[in-house]
């Protein structure tokens, strides 16, 4: 005889845990043109957007923030809505509270600068290094982009090499290219 925990039972548990302040990291997944995305939030805001390649994202959240990680889609409804609008070409800026606790020091500084790089524009790694106050730290800017915990929302896809080539991207170069294309032709 098998016993299954119904979705209803699990949802009721998550709702109550949330109401009692016991969900330190709420998460859900969403299907998108960039593949299945993992979305996670703390009380402070969105803390993680993970691509499929990031297969231990939940384990990392548990280790670095709190093991009280629970599936609680309701906490991410607004995030999903804005991402869907973005992918449909109907949103140019995200208006979401962000929790940047997973980025420290210079990397954090780079991400703050990156948030000012507008929709449909690009910047080079060295320009970004300059903006972050350390023109010679081009490599460090590269790793700040590579470890960006909240890609798409913090637009590291808008950072290119000085020669205009793509550089790298956590979600895969095809995703980076698709996002840049989308921002050039948002109506398409």
């Amino acid at each position, binding site marked *: *005889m*098998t*016993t*299954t*925990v119904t979705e209803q*039972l*699990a949802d*009721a*548990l998550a709702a*109550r*845990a949330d109401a*009692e302040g*016991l969900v330190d*990291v709420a*998460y859900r997944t969403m299907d998108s043109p960039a593949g299945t995305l993992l979305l996670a939030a703390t009380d402070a805001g969105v803390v993680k957007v993970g691509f499929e390649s990031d297969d231990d994202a*939940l*384990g990392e*959240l*548990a*280790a670095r923030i*709190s*093991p*009280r*990680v*629970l*599936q609680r889609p309701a906490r991410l409804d607004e995030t999903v809505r804005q991402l869907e609008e973005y992918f449909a070409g109907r949103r140019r800026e995200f208006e979401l509270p962000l929790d940047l606790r997973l980025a420290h020091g210079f990397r954090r500084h780079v991400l703050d600068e990156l948030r000012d790089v507008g929709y449909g524009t690009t910047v080079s790694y060295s320009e970004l290094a300059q903006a972050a106050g350390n023109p010679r730290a081009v490599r460090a800017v590269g790793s700040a982009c590579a470890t960006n915990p909240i890609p798409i929302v913090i637009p590291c896809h808008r950072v290119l090499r000085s020669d205009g080539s793509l550089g790298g991207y956590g979600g895969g170069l095809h995703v980076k290219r698709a996002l840049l294309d989308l921002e050039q032709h948002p109506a398409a």
Partner: protein
Amino acid sequence: MTLPPFQVVLDEHGPAVLRLLRRLVGSTDAEDDWQETFIAALRAYPRLRPDSDVRAWLLTIAHRKAIDRFRARGRQPMPRDDLADPVVTSSDSYGDPHGDADLWAWVRTLPDKQRLAVGYRYGADMAYDDIAVRLDCTPAAARRSVFEGLRTLRRQLEPEEART
């Protein structure tokens, strides 16, 4: 070594905890106790040692919730609404006389210690050593409780079987 996300714990052990509670308190109350168990577990989870036996820990919490329920029921007889006279049911049906559901309904009529011991042994598939820890007795006493529980069940069921 770090604790896995609580969702992993829930997915992995949720069904076993529900199974145990159904057998200890009956299916009507099991879902409430299941939620109480996991809320209590989630509350304490960050302080759990990463090398702990998570399933045993959860079953201990579930066990305490079941005991709380027995205490709350006090001296009242066990609610019989989910028993539905299993003997009549089985003699009226063609297949599966005394199937799982009927048997566990009878288990719930046993005295507390026997009911818990039988539930742990056959509901949660626990070793006698582990049952002893949970019932706060020796392994020999745990084995005896299981044996006595089974003997009582046999007495209740066998005469009926002989008649059919």
